[in-house]
């Protein structure tokens, strides 16, 4: 009969009208600025640079390898490699980014820079309230604004950070052991050098392996 479908529909909307007063099952709205949903652990927004220790610039993990710059699909990362080398977090001399800019007005939050980084130096942030009145300068983030401590990263992505930290710690242990071994070897070599036939000390490989961070 004409009208039955309409009445059924009206009953549905009435049910929703009443239901919206009865709890969060139907009324799912969150009053944003006052109430906030906890962000998901995997959530991502714009990249930042991780540094270890207290000094933001000294502790940067980035070695300016420029892989992210090359892989970035919208090409929003601009890196200038330093001329000189700077002692890395375990004292190994590495290049560092003289400038590292990300234009977040161009960035499309795809996380590819994070995926390709072999040094775990660039990670995704969750901050999304970034609107400014300046379209150009304010959205071009420089190295100083991008650098965030490892503690911040641990807070954002605890699982991933824990994994990276343990790996780094292992590598550091290894490197320390190696350094110790090297030192011992050196001492031995020195001892041997005193002896008639000197032997060349084992030289470290030229490939920079990611080594343990100084401190956490």
């Amino acid at each position, binding site marked *: 009969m004409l009208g039955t*479908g309409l009445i*059924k529909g009206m009953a*549905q*909307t009435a049910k929703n009208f009443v239901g919206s007063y009865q709890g969060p099952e139907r009324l799912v709205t969150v009053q944003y600025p006052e109430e906030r949903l906890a962000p998901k652990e*995997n959530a991502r927004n714009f990249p930042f640079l991780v540094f270890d220790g207290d000094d933001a610039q000294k502790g940067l993990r980035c070695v300016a390898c420029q892989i992210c710059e090359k*892989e*970035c699909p919208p090409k929003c990362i601009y890196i200038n490699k330093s001329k000189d080398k700077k002692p890395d977090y375990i004292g190994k001399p590495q290049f560092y980014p003289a400038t590292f800019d990300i234009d977040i007005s161009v960035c499309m939050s*795809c996380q590819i820079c994070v995926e390709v980084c072999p040094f775990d130096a660039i990670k995704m942030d969750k901050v999304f309230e970034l609107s400014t009145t300046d379209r150009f300068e304010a959205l071009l983030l420089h190295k100083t604004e991008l650098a965030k401590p490892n503690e911040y990263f641990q807070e954002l992505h605890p699982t991933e950070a824990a994994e990276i930290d343990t790996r780094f710690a292992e590598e550091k242990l290894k490197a320390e052991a190696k350094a110790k071994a090297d030192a011992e070897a050196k001492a031995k070599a020195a001892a041997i050098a005193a002896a008639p036939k000197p032997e060349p000390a084992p030289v470290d490989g030229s490939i920079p392996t990611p080594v343990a961070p100084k401190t956490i």
Partner: protein
Amino acid sequence: MSFSNSGNTGGETVIPSSDSPSLNGVTAAIDFDEPQKSYSLLPKQNSEVPGELLEVAMGPHHPSTHGVFRMDVVLDGERIVKLKPVFGYLHRNHEKIAEGTSYLGSIPYTDRLDYLCSMSNNWGYALTVEKLSGFQVPERAEYIRVIMAELTRLVNHICLVGFLMQDMGAMGTPLMYAFREREKILDLFEAASGARMMCNYLRFGGVRCDLPKGWLDEARKVVENFPRFLDEFEALLSGNEILIARAQGVGVLGKELAVNAGITGPMLRACGVNYDIRKVDKYGIYDRFDFRVPLGEHGDVFDRYMVRVLEMRESLKILKAALRDIPEGLIVDAKAKSRGLRPKVGEAYGRIEGPKGELGFYLISDGSANPYRYRVRPPSLINLTILEDMCLGLTIADAVIILGSVDIVLGEVDR
């Protein structure tokens, strides 16, 4: 007086459509070489149709054109005597950009094709690259892909029905209900991939990262609650006399024309053609799931609506099975690499049953790090080509809901 043609609102130069009515004039609507001249779809000597005709440019900023799409419509009263889809307002050079980008770098761009279904877009592209490079996808990754693709189908279809009802003037109520449910699925996407819409989740030979702890339980909860919502939705809509009157017998698309025009997806199945790439190609692990393909019979707007609703119910079956059977294991092929991928010289065409139809990617590799040629077969665009054929002789109000039932996303139409 605007019954005459003096106030032509369309400012662009457009190639006048030729006389043959179907399947023409949908490519390159804007001709940049032609000098600017005033353009009109109205016949020069108005002899065939009595009375004055009214030409209206609906779009590109019309509330119901689903983005920046334009229909140049010639009206006799409210009847449509001619309709010309005009698009390209959202062209983003996707295919050309992809030819200058690494294989990996194109994945985030595929998210933005059909921005409602980024997961399935990822899958279509990943499938093609896997064909090209021969990566094997591990079991768990296959399951994850199926789950994501079917969740995407739910999102897309539920939104489509909402938009369709919005076009019919239902004050956004069904759309809001649809969005309420979509939100839950988007939360799942965010938990898994980090983003709600631009997921960028699938990788060649697997997926980017494993599902977080507890994700599967969340997903099961969503899938369990979804049928209840669908029942409510159908109680609100399916029996509604106004919807039936508006949708049944409107925008009828013949089987033959649909097949000839290359229509795919729910549009084709609403005409009664049994063609579902999940069944035809059995890509991924779709042969393991027990699901049916709903078929319409009349090819009208109502069938397109119902086919989508029924498809959601079938998707839920697949989801239930996949969430039950998903194994532990690797999530990405050990041999696969995403950075610096250089597939051997060759070509591949991969296609999936996207929520909107056959989504195909065609790649030619010349052995370098970038594809030599990259081409998308966008279902939205191809399903749009028969818009005029469905709308002729009907009214503006019908044209709006027919466009709504085609299910386009302008990001995919214009790329």
